[in-house]
């Protein structure tokens, strides 16, 4: 844990996120143009996909890949259930809003994952390349699960239904992540070498600027949040803690090595703020983005980056026992 925590707070990546939070809190007019922020998020997804695909091409497929994919899909589909129960009872949300929020916590945040990978690599525990496929696989089951919770089966016209399904299975993140993953597998290490100055060497720098922007957005959003209660604020801290622990235990249980188990914990702990909000806007327009975006983006995301990645890593290391600690 020490290593990971230290890495967290001297890593430029995390420091830029803190700078963004700070700038927004003091009401500076610093802002990243949205076209650029969008472009950076596409770049990060393409790069992480490629890298994962190349790693799989290089190392071949680990025997655990099947079980971890299955585990990921199950987690994405099931984690919203407990979240939904908590949000309705303790959080006092109506069914629609509880379902919408729950979907966010079942799904994953690409940037949280990427930041965790940076920190794990610095600590000498890189996760396996196929974890990118797990990341992609976990994006969407939670959306279905959240929708079922929010309004049961049935309803909608078939036109809306097909819109929704397209949004769920062919949303930009899923297509780009899996597409780049496939490209990485086909091109392999030699093909990737050509583009690695752009996609590998530039990666952390882009991540810095992107996290600067996320810091700005997260802080501005919470400062103008009107519909967030303290109950929901606490839940937005508790869910990543609990889900992260579930994830890291389950990951260790099925035999993932320490880096991958930590990464899986982070995936469970993370909450989506790109793919799921867009899907919810379409599928549950009555749900309030002021609730689900503020919880996932302004509370859970910073908590994961600044605290929870460190906790999860420490837990994974502890679970792996003394042999698991490698420099």
């Amino acid at each position, binding site marked *: 844990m020490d290593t990971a925590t230290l890495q967290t707070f001297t890593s430029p990546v995390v420091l830029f996120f803190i700078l963004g939070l700070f700038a927004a809190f003091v009401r500076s007019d610093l802002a990243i143009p*949205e076209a650029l922020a*969008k472009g950076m998020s596409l770049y990060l997804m393409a790069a992480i996909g490629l890298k994962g695909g190349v790693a799989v091409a290089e190392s071949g497929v680990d025997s655990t890949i099947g079980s971890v994919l299955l585990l990921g899909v199950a987690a994405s589909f099931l984690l919203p259930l407990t979240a939904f129960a908590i949000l309705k009872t303790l959080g006092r949300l109506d069914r629609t809003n509880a379902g919408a929020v729950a979907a966010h916590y079942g799904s994953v945040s690409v940037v949280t994952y990427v930041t965790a990978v940076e920190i794990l690599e610095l600590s000498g525990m890189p996760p396996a390349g196929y974890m990118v496929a797990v990341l992609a696989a976990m994006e969407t089951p939670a959306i279905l699960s959240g929708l079922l919770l929010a309004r049961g089966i049935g309803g909608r016209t078939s036109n809306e239904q097909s819109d929704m399904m397209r949004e769920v299975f062919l949303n930009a993140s899923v297509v780009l992540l899996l597409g780049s993953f496939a490209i990485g597998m086909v091109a392999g290490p030699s093909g990737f070498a050509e583009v690695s100055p752009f996609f590998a060497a530039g990666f952390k720098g882009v991540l810095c600027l992107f996290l600067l922007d996320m810091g700005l957005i997260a802080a501005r959003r919470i400062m103008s949040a*009107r519909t967030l209660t303290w109950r929901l604020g606490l839940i937005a801290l508790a869910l990543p803690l609990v889900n992260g622990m579930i994830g890291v235990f389950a990951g260790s249980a099925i035999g993932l090595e320490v880096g991958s188990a930590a990464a899986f914990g982070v995936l469970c702990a993370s909450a989506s703020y*790109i793919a799921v909000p867009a899907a919810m*806007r379409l599928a549950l*327009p009555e749900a309030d983005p*002021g609730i689900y975006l503020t919880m996932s*983006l302004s509370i859970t995301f910073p908590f994961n980056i600044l605290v929870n990645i460190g906790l999860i890593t420490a837990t994974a290391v502890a679970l792996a026992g003394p042999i698991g600690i490698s420099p």
Partner: protein
Amino acid sequence: MTETVVRKRIEILADTPLARRVTDVIDQVGISGWTVLPVQSGSGRDGQWREERVTGADKSLILSIASEEKAAALVDALAPILTSHGLLLTMWNVEVIRGERF
């Protein structure tokens, strides 16, 4: 003097992810077209927002020119989802050239 005719101009502010739902309705009531403008920020009962393309929390302004009847049909078609989808609709008379298009 070029001749002009009077038509309705309807402008609808909608969250970008919901814009397609609005334009689908415009197509369904038989209006000949629509145009979408970007929007940067705003403020309403739910507080202020700024364009946040990454999270999809940005808005678009959809404008459409139509005859009085088609405009009324559009308003009727949109009325039920106006509140649930958080749409803002304004409408007024404009003069257009080559009015037979609309």
